[in-house]
């Protein structure tokens, strides 16, 4: 028993220090590309930390989104950036910048050290035991329609959080779309390896997304994780030069994007009119209602994430008008 505790502490210590070291290197190493790769590794270590903290739902979301999609977004932006600025900007800082301007560094550093010390003090003065809302969640779990407490909180107890969160996703996409267009045209065919990989992996990813969606009712998983996996499938397709058919990008794409929030709002209004409370599910039907909401949310989240990766509002290419 003693040896096991020691081993756990060793693991926790290494993980914590590894996280801090990777974050520090990602912020200080002179090459941007290296920084992004370090950040992706940081995301994977974060997923391990979530597992250590008994938060497998968060770990799944982090592994798919924090490490996967954010990394893909950063690398894609880096590639576009080096097209615009050439490699000048991305190389280690120029000599003028290399001169350490002392006051530019130690001022924020000392201030932040003080802030950090204050926050450490606050954390350490918290009571070592606090149940938070876990008792309330556990006692109401029977009426929520699902047995995974995180899904119960996300879709039932605090359903409006999820509703607003889907609106935020949509708003981010609208922001990206309002900044420019992307022409939808098939680029050069991908290499054989990428093409085969995409053909094998995409159906598998869709299957995994469906599984995560279904299993979310009683085990780690759910709409966000499933949507993230679906988004990853979309990113893989986009990377292997697949583009949606020109007819699909007009209203079918937009319909899929708003389907999740729209069904959510419709259900909220209907429940408000019949039960008098926003998103208060009747316990008997809660399970099936949550499954419907999660299914449409998964599709919308997945497609929104893939559209965010594409960047810019998709537009018909010149040859396809």
């Amino acid at each position: 028993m003693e040896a096991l505790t020691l081993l756990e502490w060793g693991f926790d210590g290494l993980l914590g220090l590894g996280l801090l070291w990777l974050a520090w290197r990602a912020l200080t190493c002179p090459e941007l590309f290296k920084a992004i790769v370090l950040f992706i590794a940081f995301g994977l270590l974060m997923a391990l930390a979530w597992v250590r903290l008994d938060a497998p739902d968060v770990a799944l979301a982090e592994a798919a989104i924090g490490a996967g999609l954010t990394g893909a977004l950063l690398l894609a932006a880096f590639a576009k950036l080096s097209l615009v600025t050439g490699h000048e900007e991305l190389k280690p800082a120029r000599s003028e910048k290399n001169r350490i301007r002392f006051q530019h560094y130690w001022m924020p550093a000392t201030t932040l050290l003080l802030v950090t010390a204050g926050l450490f003090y606050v954390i350490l003065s918290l009571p070592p035991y606090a149940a938070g809302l876990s008792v309330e969640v556990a006692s109401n779990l029977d009426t929520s329609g699902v047995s995974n407490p995180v899904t119960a909180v996300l879709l039932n107890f605090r359903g409006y959080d999820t509703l607003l969160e889907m609106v935020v996703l949509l708003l981010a996409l609208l922001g990206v779309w309002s900044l420019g267009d992307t022409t939808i045209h098939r680029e050069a065919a991908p290499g054989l390896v990428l093409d085969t990989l995409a053909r094998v992996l995409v159906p598998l990813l869709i299957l995994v997304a469906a599984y995560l969606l279904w299993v979310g009712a009683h085990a780690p998983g759910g709409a966000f994780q499933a949507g993230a996996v679906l988004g990853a499938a979309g990113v893989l397709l986009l990377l292997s030069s697949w583009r949606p058919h020109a007819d699909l990008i007009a209203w079918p794409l937009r319909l899929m994007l708003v389907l999740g929030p729209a069904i959510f709002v419709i259900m909220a209004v209907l429940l408000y009119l019949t039960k008098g409370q926003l998103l208060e599910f009747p316990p008997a039907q809660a399970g099936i209602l949550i499954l419907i909401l999660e299914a449409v949310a998964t599709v919308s989240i997945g497609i929104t994430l893939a559209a965010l990766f594409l960047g810019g509002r998709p537009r018909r290419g010149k040859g396809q008008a």
Partner: protein
Amino acid sequence: MSAPFFYALVGIGLFSLGLYGLIVHAHLLRKILALNIMGSGIFLVLVALAKRTGEAPPDAVPHAMVITGVVVAVSATALALTLMLKLTAETGRAELPEKGRE
């Protein structure tokens, strides 16, 4: 010190590192990385403090909030990256103009 507090302190450390990077770096891509690291630090504090339940399963409410936060963070990152590319296309530099250096 128990494991939840250790991870909460690591979270604070990440938050401070991220904030430092956000202040001292001029390049916008680096600032976006720093913001993401700050966010991860805050998530770590939230989830770590949710585990202060002893032997009982941890509090699910912060977990749900963090999942929501992770998804919001990725959408905000996508928007920020697009804004950065747009700025770079306009000015040729992925940095904000500095006062006194124009």
